[in-house]
């Protein structure tokens, strides 16, 4: 997209001259850098519960955030009114962070060549609400039809179209139109006294077609229903340290929690991460190579440019077990003298950008998944997860398996309930002894929270074996 095509120039009548004026105001008390982040977001959400459409909503939010950097200091102000007076006032407020003679922003903007990872004019915006609704109803029907023991289904569809424009005092000019869609459901199965739940979903930076051709409502519905039915017969998980095998795809949340957050540059710049000062050191077994890749076409965590206008990259984080890089934004890159990896992201114009993951995954190894399972005498095979959490400073992370099985003498046996895994980030991956040849990315449901800001992310792993991990069940 060129400058002239941006919605902000067309709809809101913003001109390049005005942008220069806002930046000049933002730097009126000095500072090293200033930027403007314009955002126009439309969203649609539909939910079906008890087989009827209970919620349908649409919304629009628009605004501009002004940021001024001065050394390690950040001044920030935003407005949801895009009139010149309000943007000027936000610029004046953000400028208060600096104290010194005024600086002049670079004249003229240069637009970076950037990726084209998803359709620019996505069909999402124009797609008929009825077509979206039909997807959700189909999901509901498919889950109920899977098994008569499925007694409750809640299915939902959500999409958004985010248009952004980022202007920086260093001449940065970047705009992007970012579609995002998700179809998901949760269901409850009951049989006698036993009840259980299952959940599934997916999507990405895709149009409605994706749910008609690639991942259909039936695909997600059957997966959720299958999990719920299996869980009806689940037994208590064991408690204690044992071998753990993680299935491919979404269990990659392990990487996200165990190491991903700990490698975000802001924590390392401040020395508050358990990974601080470990660049070039071994943090994983030599079978582990981990990347953060914001450039995968259509994937949920992908973006053409980050929220500071920098192109996203495929960043090697861990190569054969050695820590290679931190994930950086402009501020941390400058202060640490390291490259900006294009990971500066924010939830919305109301938020200050910071280093965030995009799609974080481990590259495939040589082992077949069957051999990995066969190698385990007594352990846990975890194939689906709820959520996870990490304490960056001491490295402890937790994640909860929503679908897991015992492995006994090389065979997958009983389903387990109530199974939480806990470990220590800096040494969890040193215990990886086998890496499968079956890398998968998750289906597109992940949302990552950090300091109160949520952004969509992707994760992935091949089948992995960890020689020792604490399983938090109730059975002895």
């Amino acid at each position, binding site marked *: 997209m060129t400058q002239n095509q941006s919605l902000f120039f067309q709809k809101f009548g913003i001109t390049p001259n005005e942008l220069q004026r806002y930046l000049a105001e933002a730097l009126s008390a000095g500072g090293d850098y200033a930027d403007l982040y314009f955002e126009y977001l439309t969203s649609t*959400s539909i939910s079906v519960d008890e087989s009827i459409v209970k919620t349908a909503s649409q919304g629009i*939010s628009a605004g501009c955030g002004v940021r001024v950097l001065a050394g390690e200091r950040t001044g920030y102000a935003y407005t949801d009114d895009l009139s010149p007076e309000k943007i000027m006032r936000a610029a004046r407020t953000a400028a208060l962070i600096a104290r010194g003679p005024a600086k002049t922003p670079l004249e003229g903007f240069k637009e970076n060549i950037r990726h084209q990872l998803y359709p620019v004019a996505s069909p999402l915006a124009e797609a008929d609400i009825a077509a979206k609704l039909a997807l959700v109803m189909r999901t509901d029907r498919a889950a109920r039809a899977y098994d008569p023991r499925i007694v409750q289904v809640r299915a939902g569809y959500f999409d958004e179209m985010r248009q952004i424009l980022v202007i920086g005092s260093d001449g940065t000019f970047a705009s992007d139109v970012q579609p995002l869609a998700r179809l998901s459901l949760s269901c409850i199965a009951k049989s006698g006294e036993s009840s259980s739940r299952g959940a599934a979903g997916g999507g990405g930076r895709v149009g409605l077609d994706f749910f008609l051709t690639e991942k259909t409502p039936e695909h997600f519905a059957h997966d959720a229903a299958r999990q719920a039915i299996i869980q009806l017969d689940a037994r208590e998980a064991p408690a204690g340290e044992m071998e753990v095998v993680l299935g491919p795809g979404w269990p990659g949340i392990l990487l996200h929690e165990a190491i991903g957050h700990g490698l975000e540059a802001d924590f390392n710049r401040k020395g508050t991460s358990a990974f601080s000062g470990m660049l070039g050191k071994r943090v994983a077994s030599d079978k582990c190579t981990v990347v953060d890749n914001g450039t995968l076409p259509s994937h949920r965590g992908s973006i053409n440019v980050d929220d500071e206008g920098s192109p996203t990259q495929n960043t090697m984080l861990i190569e054969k077990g050695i820590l290679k890089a931190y994930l950086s934004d402009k501020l941390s890159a400058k202060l640490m003298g390291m490259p900006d990896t294009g990971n500066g992201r924010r939830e919305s114009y109301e938020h200050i950008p910071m280093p965030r993951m995009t799609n974080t995954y481990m590259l495939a190894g040589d082992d077949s998944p069957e051999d990995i399972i066969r190698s385990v005498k007594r352990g846990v095979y975890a194939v689906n997860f709820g959520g996870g959490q990490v304490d960056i400073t001491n490295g*402890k992370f937790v994640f*909860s398996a929503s679908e897991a099985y015992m492995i006994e003498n090389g065979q997958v046996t009983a389903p387990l309930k109530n199974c939480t895994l806990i470990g220590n980030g800096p040494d969890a991956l040193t215990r990886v002894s086998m890496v499968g040849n079956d890398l998968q990315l998750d289906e597109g449901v992940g949302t990552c929270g950090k300091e109160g800001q949520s952004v969509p992310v992707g994760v992935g792993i091949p089948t992995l074996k960890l020689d020792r991990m604490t399983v938090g*069940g109730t059975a002895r």
Partner: protein
Amino acid sequence: MATHLETISGTDSGLRRLATDVVSRAMKRGASAAEAVVREGTEFSTAVRLGQVETLKESGSRAIGLRVFLGGKSASTYSSDLTEDGLQRLISGALDLAKVTSEDPYAGIPEPSQLGSLQSDLQLYCDDVYALPPEQRIDYARRAERAALDADPRLKNSDGGSFDAAIGYKILANSHGFVGEFRRSYCSMYAAPIAQDESGAMQRDYWFSLARTLAKLEPPETVGREAARRTLRRLGARKIASTQVPIILDPRVAGSILDNIFDGVNGDAIYRQSSFLAGQLGQKVAADNITVIDDGTIPGGFGTEPFDGEGVPTQRTAVIENGVLKSYLLNTYTAKKLGLRTTGNASRGLAGNPGIGSGNFFLQAGDRTPQQIIGGIKRGLYVIEFLGFGVNMVTGDFSRGASGLWIENGELAYPVEEITVAGNLKDMLKNISEIGNDLEFRGSTAAPTLRIDGMMIAGE
């Protein structure tokens, strides 16, 4: 440094008119019922780290949400675009959307007789949170952090200190003629020091104070010193072997069990049969000594509002009384689904249908001091943090990561980490054997120290 802001002063008749106009325009366009909410807010936050200002953030926003009904069909829209063009789209968008949704016989806004607003002074607003000049806000944050770092030489680094304040204004109007409005203020202070031991291992914890007025905020030094104490006690943590011993939850952690109880009595989960407490009204669900109250009417409370998200006055509801489940928490829709009366617990964002929100939700204090409870345990675990999301509300299965302090002969002996605590909420509520006298509100949910027996701890 100087700044000035448009603060929200008194009633904003313009925004009030906006809400009622949008409702009447939706009705004229054919809606059978309509409800609009307007929110306006101003916030600032100040963060310092190692004594230096790290961020200053300051802003305001306003937006409107509309819910319309066409008989049993409903839909909602929201927008931050309050121009005539934006409002036009808001109204027609909602009506168009409602046409394609399903007929739901239980949908609707409350009956006129149920609507109303508490008239007493709820002490939710004090403009002093905005009175501080920026230098003093920074000073609050700095003093909290400095008090934490000065407490001990092992506190070598910091995630910073902060001071935040916000003012919010909310108007709700519906087609039964209800118009309610209130303002709220908020200020908070926070410190998060990082401690390091000889081996280089780091631990972080935090403490905070929050209040509706500056006058009730604790001194920064108190906040900083408590943050230091909480951080230092984690240094040198080790793993322990798997075992089954009594656990004690510190009030902050006990509050998370209250969150689980809230989720369990949430009307949405009840009618969907997705709660372990569904269908148990009138039955024993907890130990005899357990009484859990939801009260949206406590003056100055963080869960206090004069009316709920649908315009129903808030109330005091005994949820569990002496171990017996007395009431679910309901809005209009869930009450109709269950054949009960709303408890005034509707919560409403800008978009979507109202959900269920808590008032001030708390477990009534007992008479034991925390020291007495710890002193009564020979071997056990004092839990200071839960990590992760391992709670299954359908079954009550509970398995969460934990950090804590090992109890040996009635005394806190050493810190432990990288363990999990597991059980089932149904059993846990019945196995609460002791309740502390230390109930204190730091937010809308609160619990005193609790002792729970019979849980499994997984470690090495």
